[in-house]
């Protein structure tokens, strides 16, 4: 009896002394594991996506919400070490570059006097980060906004040389943290002896062309293999891409270092290309009828002009008939400029269903006739003459033709440009997948997830993330770069991929814990 009481007393004291404790605390070893991977030194390479560039700028909270930084926090559950980033000095965005204008501030969502929201550059503070202030590294996040695949390789040494900024040979973001003016990104990365790496590069090799409306060159067509001669608006040659990418992977994976490669999403996944519909020409019945009449008039004028050059009438009519565009009440597709050729002497046509307009197009101008016709009173007067069966003068005919306001090449991606983009992307992604397989690296199909975001969305706690501009949650206000929530989705995708490849078991993140866009009315 005495003994029993003693035991009871001890048990009771034990109970009382106890603070609450879980049966299986997540802090316990064994809850999570790094599998075959070693996260002690994780180095991330890439471009603006990796750097955490968002809202058209690089700023601290964007960097903190970059997928590599989020990922590093999950890695910390299974041996992940410190993760350093070349943080900017403020949340204003912008970057001071001696001898030239600063890079612009971040975009914020502002409400105008009518209460309509729209992105505007933040004007509440001036940028304080100077490119001349070179940080002491190394940094785990080596993402460099604007970088293309061939900017990372050893041969691109000097990409971080401040003296090269004026000539466009250097990148201000790499200048900030290059180990020396003659350093190359890949060499600075390898020097850190990473135990794990991620690589998401190649987006700009296509995107530069896409976001400039395809005004640059497609080097898969030109056959130019000299990357040094490429402009920022060009598509990188497939062989140049493969060669550079191969060098990066080979150097990073040397000695069996494990890592994850990310492939390249489609431009149609990005609000920059999907926000302004190509059929935003919304007409009432009367306007549609008068536009249809206008183009019948154009057809007549062209027929007369062509026939006037000695072409048989039937042939002239057939040629001119391409301009007999009809419009109906409701949504109609815009007109875009094409090359002036003998078969399309006026150099325009209506957009096809797949063709895209850029977010940066002047939407005010679209409402005023850009993309269709500037129907001035003078033009309408000529139309009246035509409708009454009269014959306009040559000058009047020229005035009608000049009223056509097709969309410039820089504001749209036409089907040829989309094909060029698609060809390059398919080739680049094949290279990435092939090198992942050849080096036993994990491959995250970011393209597939981002396509899902754009097409129906990805369900999260409390809602759905889509690529809808401003409201969808997946993208920042520049329409190209992900929001923190988008980065969280990418993080979860990478965790899935490395789970599959390396048996990693780590907690996911809840995308609903990550923000989307930032409101502020501190704008001009």
């Amino acid at each position, binding site marked *: 009896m005495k003994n029993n009481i003693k035991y009871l007393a001890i048990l009771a004291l034990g109970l009382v002394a106890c603070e609450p404790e879980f049966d299986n605390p997540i802090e316990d070893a064994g809850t999570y594991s790094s599998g075959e991977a070693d996260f002690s030194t994780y180095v991330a390479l890439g471009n603006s996506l990796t750097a955490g560039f968002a809202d058209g700028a690089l700023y601290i909270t964007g960097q903190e919400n970059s997928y590599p930084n989020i990922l590093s926090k999950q890695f910390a559950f299974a041996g992940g070490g410190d993760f350093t980033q070349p943080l900017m000095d403020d949340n204003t965005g912008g970057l001071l570059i001696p001898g030239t204008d600063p890079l612009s501030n971040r975009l914020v969502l502002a409400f105008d006097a009518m209460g309509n929201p729209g992105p505007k550059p933040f004007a*509440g503070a001036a940028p304080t980060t100077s490119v001349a202030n070179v940080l002491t590294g190394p940094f785990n996040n080596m993402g460099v906004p604007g970088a293309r695949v061939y900017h990372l390789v050893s041969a691109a040494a000097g990409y971080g040389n401040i003296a090269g900024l004026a000539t466009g040979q250097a990148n201000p973001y790499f200048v900030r943290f290059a180990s020396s003016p003659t350093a190359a990104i890949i060499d600075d990365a390898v020097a850190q002896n990473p135990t794990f790496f991620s690589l998401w590069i190649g987006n700009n090799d296509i995107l530069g062309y896409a976001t400039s409306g395809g005004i640059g060159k497609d080097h898969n067509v030109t056959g130019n293999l000299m990357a040094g001669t490429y402009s920022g608006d060009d598509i990188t040659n497939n062989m140049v891409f493969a060669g550079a990418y191969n060098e990066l992977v080979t150097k990073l994976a040397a000695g069996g270092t494990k890592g994850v490669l990310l492939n390249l999403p489609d431009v149609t996944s990005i609000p920059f290309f999907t926000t302004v519909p190509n059929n935003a020409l919304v007409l009432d019945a009367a306007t549609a009828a008068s536009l249809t009449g206008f183009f019948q008039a154009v057809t007549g004028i062209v027929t007369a002009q062509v026939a006037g050059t000695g072409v048989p009438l039937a042939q002239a009519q057939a040629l001119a008939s391409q301009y007999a565009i009809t419009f109906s009440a409701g949504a109609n597709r815009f007109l875009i400029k094409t090359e002036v050729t003998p078969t399309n002497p006026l150099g325009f046509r209506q957009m096809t269903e797949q063709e895209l307009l850029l977010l940066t197009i002047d939407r005010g101008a679209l409402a005023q006739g850009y993309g269709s016709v500037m129907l001035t009173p003078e033009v309408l007067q000529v139309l009246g003459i035509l409708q009454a069966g009269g014959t306009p003068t040559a000058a009047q005919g020229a005035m009608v033709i000049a009223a056509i306001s097709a969309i410039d090449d820089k504001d749209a991606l036409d089907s040829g440009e989309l094909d060029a983009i698609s060809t390059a992307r398919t080739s680049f992604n094949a290279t990435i997948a092939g090198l992942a397989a050849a080096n036993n690296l994990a491959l995250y199909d970011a393209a597939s997830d981002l396509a899902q975001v754009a097409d129906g969305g990805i369900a999260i706690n409390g809602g759905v993330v889509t690529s809808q501009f401003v409201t969808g949650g997946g993208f920042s206000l520049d329409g190209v770069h992900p929001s923190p929530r988008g980065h969280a989705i990418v993080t979860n995708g990478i965790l899935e991929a490395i789970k599959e490849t390396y048996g990693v078991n780590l907690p996911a993140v*809840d995308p609903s814990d990550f923000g989307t866009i930032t409101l502020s009315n501190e704008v001009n």
Partner: protein
Amino acid sequence: MRKLLLLVLFVSVTAVTYAGGYRVSVQGQRAMAMGHTGVAVVNSAELVFFNPAGLVYLENKLNVSVGASAIFSDVIFQNEELGASAETDNSVGTPINLYVSYKLNDWMSVGLGVYTPYGSEVTWPTDWAGSHLVNNIDLSAIFIQPTVSFKLSEFLSIGGGPIYASGSVNFNRNANRTTTDLDGNRSNITVDDSGVSNWGWTVGAMFNFNDNLRLGFNYRSEITIESEDGEAIFANFPNSPGVPPNGATGFKAELPLPAELTVGLSYEYEKWLFAFDYNRQFWGVYESLDLTFENGAPPSINPRNYKNSSVYRFGLQYQATEKIALRAGYYRDETPVQPGFFAPETPRNSSDGFSGGLSFAVTSKLAIDASFFYLRFEEIDASYDFGTNSTGGTESFGGTYKSGAFAPGLGLTYKL
């Protein structure tokens, strides 16, 4: 030696009490030591709270009981899927009680009670994973209750009185999971109000079958704390007409302090006293915690959907010596929180309470009362599935919770 061991056993093994929701059942040191039973125990002025009807059966003309406890509580949270974890850093809760009864004549006694039956003090780390539901909350109410008790016969008495309640609240949480100012500081709202008062009442009856067996009944009405003059402070919202302005504004909110019905019995046998109480707590009135703001910010609607709940209490007293009475108790406290409504501002699931204590008679008039309780919660996987996100969507927050609380208390009983 045996006595000492017994003492250790009683004091340490038997801790227990508290109750679901934000009810804090620590209304008397002697009752607390016996699992917070008392509706049918005629022992001290603690009857002012437990059952005013019993006051007329107290032997002495003047009875005073004062006491205070220190509640040390701790809640831990983790979510294995997301790797999230947090632990509260609560300050010590200090429920107090003061009871006085005075026998005017053989058939009538009057009394006064001051006690703190409701409260909640939970402090999570700022910006923790559930910060959109609560960063910290400090809720308290003090009840002042004048009482009269009538002996209808040796067998039956009744009693009751009005209750004046005064409450205060300080509650901070983040606006939602994501809204920040330009520098990433989380937008948050603090509501603060004090001196919010209202009236209620209590009534009880006691039936004595014989000298040994008593039956008690007590009902305390619901009191609604309606906050109308408090201040809500909005902080770290971005500078935009799309969100509320930063700074102080008014708010309105209502919090019910639910009614409680207790029936129970006590049985005395030689040096032993056994007590059983059944509490029915009418939490069903706590449907939603809704806050409206004067600055035009959208109202904060927080469904609670509590259900009525029960507590089963068992207490034992042993008069060890003339001077020392030992007490022990156990109770089972069923949670009023329904699945899917588990909010971290009142993270209470069902619990088992173990209590113990003793009285030491310093003189024939004055005794020191000590009590102790330990509240054991089971680990629970729970969530709050009715949160509202920044775009109006319904979202969920949950994980594994485990709570613990223990509370030593001291009091004095004076009889004249």
